[in-house]
């Protein structure tokens, strides 16, 4: 056991920190979940990519630095600490890319990954449907074979696609075998949102941004080159990325550590050094403790992953923990602000927006109810029925 970072890692942190200090836009960009904000965020992504900070853990040939998991965690800590912009490329980088690395052809990797990383092609996910939320296997959108054209024709609807209104491409599951049920007969497609027959309808989120979209497909053509993995094996292919969504990759501890530090700052500003109401002090302390617990649990897990273990059902525990700590942390900030918390045009407004965002945590990527079932059944071994 050695809980210090190596010299190389420390140097990596220093490089990262100084680049971010020099380049993070000030004042902060407007929300990336609006049309104008998205465009500005795309520019930021291009800058990150050009400096090889967009995807540090990827191979150099696709714009990365071949960074270790530890270096990636350090990058995320520094990125959050610097208050750098949200990553509008994250659904591509964190959800789709791992699947492409595992299941994509060399041609697909070469064609898709660099543009994804630079933000030139922004990807959104198409998991949910009106009748398939936490129960993904309820997917009804279908793809019909078009042999003549050498591809498939899509029909149906996807919902809750994050930033779908601004993205260029969508990945998701469609039913290619109408006879098969539930998990069988699904295929993983990569779809151009500019293609014919695609309609994107923005849906306004709790915080007023058009953060969601509904996407309708009416006889939309997808060439065979844009099928990911084997036809009919889409469920298995997708599970790799939902594992990522629920687990480690999207939620490096840096974000929560930075949020806890900002909460401490807020407590000091609202009440002066150490002077806050003891009950609020206690809640602020709990938030900081949660972030620490999350950090060390992550380091514990990453050590095992580095030794070659694969993440398992424990990722459900991780999702439960960060999503609930995030809500509590923001609730504490709102309590500190008291009757000023409702204001959305002050310097503190980010806390209300952050709270609204945090409320999606226990809902998306499998509700926390589903996650608790997974923990009970797959981690603890309780009977399914």
């Amino acid at each position, binding site marked *: 056991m050695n809980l210090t970072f190596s010299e190389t890692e420390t140097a990596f942190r220093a490089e990262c920190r100084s680049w971010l200090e020099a380049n993070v836009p000030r004042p902060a960009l407007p929300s990336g979940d609006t049309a104008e904000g998205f465009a500005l965020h795309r520019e930021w992504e291009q800058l990150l990519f050009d400096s090889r900070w967009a995807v540090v853990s990827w191979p150099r040939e696709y714009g990365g630095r071949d960074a270790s998991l530890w270096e990636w965690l350090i990058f995320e800590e520094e990125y959050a600490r610097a208050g750098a912009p949200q990553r509008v490329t994250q659904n591509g980088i964190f959800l789709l890319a791992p699947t492409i690395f595992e299941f994509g052809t060399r041609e697909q990797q070469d064609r898709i990954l660099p543009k994804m990383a630079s933000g030139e092609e922004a990807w959104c996910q198409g998991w*949910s449907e009106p*009748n398939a*939320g*936490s*129960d993904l296997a*309820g997917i009804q959108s279908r793809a019909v074979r078009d042999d003549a054209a050498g591809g498939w024709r899509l029909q149906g609807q996807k*919902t*809750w696609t994050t930033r779908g209104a601004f993205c260029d491409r969508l990945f998701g599951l469609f039913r290619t075998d109408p006879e098969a049920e539930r998990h069988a007969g699904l295929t993983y497609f990569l779809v151009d949102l500019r293609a014919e027959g695609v309609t994107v309808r923005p*849906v*306004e*989120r*709790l915080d*007023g941004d058009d953060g*969601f979209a509904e996407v309708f497909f009416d006889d939309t053509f997808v060439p065979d080159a844009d099928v990911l993995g084997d036809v009919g094996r889409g469920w298995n292919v997708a599970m790799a990325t939902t594992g990522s969504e629920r687990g480690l990759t999207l939620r490096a501890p840096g974000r929560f550590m930075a949020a806890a530090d900002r909460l401490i700052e807020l407590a000091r500003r609202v009440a002066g050094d150490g002077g806050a*109401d003891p*009950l*609020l002090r206690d809640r602020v302390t709990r938030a900081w403790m949660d972030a620490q617990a999350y950090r060390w649990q992550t380091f514990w897990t990453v050590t095992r992953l580095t030794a070659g273990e694969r993440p398992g059902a424990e990722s459900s525990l991780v999702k439960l923990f960060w999503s609930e700590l995030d809500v509590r942390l923001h609730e504490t900030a*709102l*309590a500190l*602000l*008291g*009757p*000023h*918390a*409702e*204001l*959305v*045009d*002050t310097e503190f407004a980010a806390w*209300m927006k952050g709270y*609204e965002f945090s*409320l*999606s945590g*226990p*809902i*998306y990527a499998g*509700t*926390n*109810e589903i996650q*608790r079932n997974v923990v009970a059944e797959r981690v603890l071994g309780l009977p399914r029925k």
Partner: protein
Amino acid sequence: MHFAFSDEQLALRDAVRDLLAKECPPTAVRAAWTSGTGRCPAAWNALTEMGVLGVLAPEAIGGLALDDVDLVLALEETGRVALPEPIVETAAVAVPLLATLDDERAADLVAGSSAALVHALAPHAVWADTAAVIVVLGEAHGSAEAPADVELAPAESVDGARRLFTVGIGSVPGSPAALTAHEAALAFDRAALGTAAQLVGLADRMITMTVEYASERKQFGVPIGSFQAVKHHLADARLALEFARPLVYRAAWTVAERDPERSLAVSLAKASASDAASLAARVALQCHGAIGYTTEYDLHLFMKRSWALSATWGDPAWHRARIGRGIL
């Protein structure tokens, strides 16, 4: 001991409920979000007509000469529909306050103009730009200002219908209708009580709409309301509401009767109602899932009102501290 409402009181509640169902459906609340005033004039006029603004006013100025127990159920109904109007500020606080002071503006309020309030624990006057009088409440004093004599600076709320203003008191020395400490304290308790009543209505509404949604919406082939986790979330929300509601009604009685336990009772009511509404909001959103997270769906109208009201006129921690000082 008789802890129930009279038939007349229940009839007033039902009349207000019917009125609001008609005049303040969710579409009207949405309209207020984008309108110039943030208000719902049709409902306000109908409530004025019905006499609700004057429940606590003497008959001499057009009031009904009833008391806070008569009013509390009407306020609960306004919470249930998230009425975007200063009904608590006007009917529950300013009307009886100005009437006590023999301030002639009381009659204007009963007749349909509105009041806004400012207090350290409610620092933004809501709908102040359309108010006829702005009551500034201190710990042990207060005054009722004419809008012309103060400076209003707008502030934006997460609840788009709540039009907030910071109030800058002008140079007018010794403003009219100065309040005593007793009146200021009573006005504060009435504001907290009225807000608590609205929070109970909001909690009830959010639970009801979530039960409906969970009974309809299917996942894994069955209504999500048949899952034990969803059941238990909603049972917990109902539990909090069940035990908050009598505290609100009892607080109304202590206010009406000038009972010595009034402040303790009001704090119990406001803390419990705030907690119940906050829990109902969390449970409602969690059980709805993503749809509750969109503004196309109505839930957010009620949720955001709950957030705002829970934190004003003393949040639960503030009221618990006040109780603690009383009992420990």
